[in-house]
């Protein structure tokens, strides 16, 4: 797929960084939708990037490491988790895809505030009304270790969740929640099986709420909380369309 010369120049200007805020936002949205445009921006960025070599290093007043360390994944213990076996290709694919998504701790009020390292992954431009498969990767932040993959078929309102790199602490269980202002307090979608796929019925909830909701995981006693989360979520994410 080739870009029109005019589009390539839009990409050039976006890479240079001279766009006013509104045009910069439009260019970013376009790059998120159109891989060809994103690639063109990246090519221009690559052309200009050596200019950074000429920028003098400056020692910051405060070391930024502690704040960064608090926001990245702990090192994976013992390499890839056993749960990822047989799904290796997809695991990697999702990780790579995640790395292009913007991670942001979004304002879910007290809920988000109580998430120590929780990061909600979402895509900036989610085409609404594009029926079919939606997917969310529930993770603690960072692309290296997605913990659960959730997929939702909006037509049948069926949710499937599969742990990818998650093992509940000894004597505990993971419980899945759907959270949306339209639904009131978090609604339990049941306890997630330790392995394999667990399915959950979303028919009680409206399509818009299902599509917009945050899906979160809490740690509960075996068998589940009984209806109210007993603590802050350890994983949370919003749905994004599954584009392949």
């Amino acid at each position, binding site marked *: 797929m080739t870009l029109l010369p005019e589009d390539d120049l839009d990409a*050039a200007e976006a890479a240079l*960084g001279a766009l006013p805020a509104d045009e910069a936002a439009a260019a970013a949205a376009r790059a998120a939708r159109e891989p060809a445009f994103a690639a063109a921006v990246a090519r221009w960025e690559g052309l200009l*990037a*050596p200019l*950074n*070599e*000429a920028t*003098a290093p400056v020692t910051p007043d405060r070391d930024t490491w502690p704040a960064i360390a608090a926001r990245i994944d702990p090192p994976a213990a013992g390499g890839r988790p056993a749960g990822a076996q047989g799904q290796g290709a997809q695991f990697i694919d999702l990780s790579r895809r995640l790395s292009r998504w913007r991670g942001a701790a979004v304002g879910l009020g007290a809920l988000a505030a109580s998430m120590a390292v929780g990061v909600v992954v979402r895509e900036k431009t989610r085409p609404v009304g594009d029926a079919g498969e939606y997917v969310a990767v529930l993770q603690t932040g960072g*692309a290296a270790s997605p913990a659960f993959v959730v997929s939702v078929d909006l037509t049948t309102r069926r949710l499937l969740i599969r742990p990818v790199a998650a093992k509940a602490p000894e004597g505990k269980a993971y419980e899945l929640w759907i959270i949306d202002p339209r639904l009131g307090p978090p609604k339990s979608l049941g306890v997630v099986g330790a392995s394999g796929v667990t399915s959950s019925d979303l028919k009680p909830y409206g399509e818009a709420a299902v599509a917009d909701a945050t899906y979160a995981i809490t740690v509960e006693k075996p068998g589940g909380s009984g209806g109210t989360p007993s603590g802050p979520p350890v994983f949370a994410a919003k749905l994004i369309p599954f584009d392949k």
Partner: protein
Amino acid sequence: MNATPPAPDPTDLLRRAAGGDQGAFRALHAATQPKLFGVALRILARRDAASDAVQEAYVKIWRRAADFDPAKGSAVAWMATITRNVALDAVRKTQPISLEDMPDGFEPAAEAVDPLAGRERSERLSALMKCLEELEPRKREMVLLAYWHGASRDALAAKYSAPAATIKTWLRRSLLGLRECMET
């Protein structure tokens, strides 16, 4: 001359970080933080804002480490590009950059020399600087003000007393010229 142990190679550290090695990422941070802070500070001017941008940039670098392709440039250049984009996002959210504080006759190419860059200037930078020198001085200055200081089209229009549409045309022609020059 070579008595000191070689500095860790950022490309190697970044590759290890992509595999989840947090220790390598910490070493990469230690080795590159001043550079990235310099990149952010140029755009944001305020040190606290630059620190915030650098912090945000490293989190993104950690997440995207697997996307880095050494065939397309150096690890530091790639990291600097991410930092620049974070800083540009931040500066656009606060206020448009004004170039009023910049002295007349400001010559970015002369101003911005990393003491190390003189000796360690990469081939890519040398080639790019050579191509920049082929641009008209004023157009070269605009490109560098935009790249190094995050000057927007409107800020450049004010500085050069030209309509924003004209600046846009000049910038685009300059970029095309640069690419053509780099490809030959």
